[in-house]
């Protein structure tokens, strides 16, 4: 119909669709899935880093870490708000997370085992996230695009802080350097996998590209990330746990080893106790807080009634 043509034209011209605009139902659904998954990832992502807040080694690092985790909560908030413009409530989305219906980035199922993990998450995980997210700052859905501009700005800041933490540790004792290398060994492959399946195996990409939700392919983004990160690793003085990783002058890119997709799908599909523990922590927080939310509602109701009576 005419609506569809208008929508297509706007998207093709690189314009923004707004909440009040007509949009295809599958576009709406795809966006809700993607935005809420992203929001859930921010919220669940508070847990692995939150695990080290009480043990941060200096007050400055503690403050930086709390601020970072707080920012992630903030990202969750505006992403939920962006999803809500599409006609779904935050409570519905959270319910889908808790029931296991909705997914979140499986990277957050991995445990944070040492303080170096905090730096490596900032450097690699946030680094990979930024690569994934920068194209979304120009995605076709306005509220999402605007949320992503803010998210990306803060993520870059986090990435620099993570890298700075690692630089400090690498200038420290041998034990600290070993800790950093160990963390890189554990997080490198999961970070690489954050870009999702190879393009040939990716389900959603074609339609999403058409809609301007996904402008660059998984493999291209992954390559970009690897190329950028290898240089940073050299400065840092760490080695990636991939003997096949090397510069390919012909391609003008780094080659790297084959990804263990079994591991990827096991983690994505929740065959991991990390997934069980993360969800359990979120559900516990939600259930423990039920009486607080109920109290806030009841107080608001009483207040409204009192004001009504006074009027």
């Amino acid at each position, binding site marked *: 119909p005419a609506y569809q043509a208008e929508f297509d034209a706007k998207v093709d011209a690189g314009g923004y669709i707004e909440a009040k605009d007509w949009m295809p139902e599958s576009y709406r659904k795809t966006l809700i899935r993607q935005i809420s998954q992203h929001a859930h990832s921010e*919220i669940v992502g*508070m*847990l692995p880093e*939150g695990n080290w*807040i*009480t*043990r*941060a*080694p*200096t*007050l*400055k*690092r*503690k*403050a930086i870490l*709390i*601020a970072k*985790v*707080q920012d992630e*909560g*903030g990202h*969750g*908030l505006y992403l*939920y708000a962006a999803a809500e413009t599409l006609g779904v409530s935050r409570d519905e989305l959270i319910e889908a997370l808790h029931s296991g219906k909705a997914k979140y980035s499986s990277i957050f199922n991995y445990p944070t085992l040492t*303080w170096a993990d905090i730096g490596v998450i900032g450097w690699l995980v946030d680094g990979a996230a930024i690569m994934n997210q920068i194209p979304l700052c120009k995605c076709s859905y306005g509220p999402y695009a605007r949320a992503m501009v803010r998210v990306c700005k803060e993520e870059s800041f986090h990435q620099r802080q993570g890298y700075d*933490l690692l630089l*400090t*540790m690498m*200038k*420290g*004792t041998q*034990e*600290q350097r070993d800790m950093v290398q160990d963390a890189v060994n554990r997080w490198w492959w999961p970070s690489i996998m954050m870009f999702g399946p190879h393009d040939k195996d990716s389900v959603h990409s074609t339609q999403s590209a058409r809609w301007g939700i996904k402008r660059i392919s998984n493999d291209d983004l992954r390559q970009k990330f690897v190329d950028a990160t290898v240089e940073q690793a050299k400065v840092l003085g760490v080695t990636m746990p991939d003997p096949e990783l090397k510069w390919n002058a012909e391609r003008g890119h780094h080659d790297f080893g084959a990804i263990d997709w079994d591991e990827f799908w096991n983690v994505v599909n929740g065959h991991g106790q990390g997934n069980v523990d993360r969800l359990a*922590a979120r559900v*516990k*927080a*939600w259930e*423990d*807080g*039920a*009486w*607080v*939310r*109920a*109290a*806030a509602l*009841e*107080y608001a109701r*009483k207040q409204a009634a009192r004001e009504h009576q006074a009027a």
Partner: protein
Amino acid sequence: MNQQMNSPEHIEYVTRIGDNALILGQRMSEWCGHAPVLEEDMALANMSLDLIGQARMLLAHAGKLEGKGRDEDQLAFLRTELNYRNLTLCELPNQDFARTMVRNFLFASFQVLLWERLLTSSDSELAAIAAKSLKEARYHAQHAGDWVIRLGDGTVESHARAQAALDYLWPYTAEFFVTTPADDAVAAAAIGPAWSELEAAWEALVLPVLVEATLTVPARTPFKSFGKFGRHSEHLGHLLSEMQYLQRTYPGAQW
């Protein structure tokens, strides 16, 4: 800064204010990712950040006053339990959201009054810290006070929890106002008020909110806690074993 400004009492006084912020900031930070709603995750993280920021300024200042080269981190992470000077109230476990919010309200209200008085401290550094921190404490007291009212005047369950929290915490507030030799010396030097001077003003701040929250204020009992004298509850040691872990495990490392 004259000689009198570096008295042990002065150092202890500043350390005590810093330890309150440090230990309560640590407790607040435990909520991060586990609050009842996302907005409270943010708010609690924010208050934790404010408190840790205050602790950094205060402990750095205490270290300078002391003049032994100890920086904020050495003071925060490398003392043993009997050398922390925080109020016992600050180290108690968070337990539920009601106890967390009632505590924040009781403590932040006290902080507001303290910072107000410290604006005119003869220790100009302390006065500058007070100027920065007063706004924060006012926000904390407002935020927690709003929740105390909402919980107290909310559902049957939330009222019961808020009342239980108040009953549990109230006896620890007596410690705020116990006189100490350090306070007298500090007050004499116009560095800051003896905390006992703040009791009436604190009650005037706190009681109306508790009344609006429909809560019953417990009677005072003879119980006294002694955290600010370095005699704590069993809770502080556990908090410290976690907080100090990395500094203790890798002595001298830079982070």
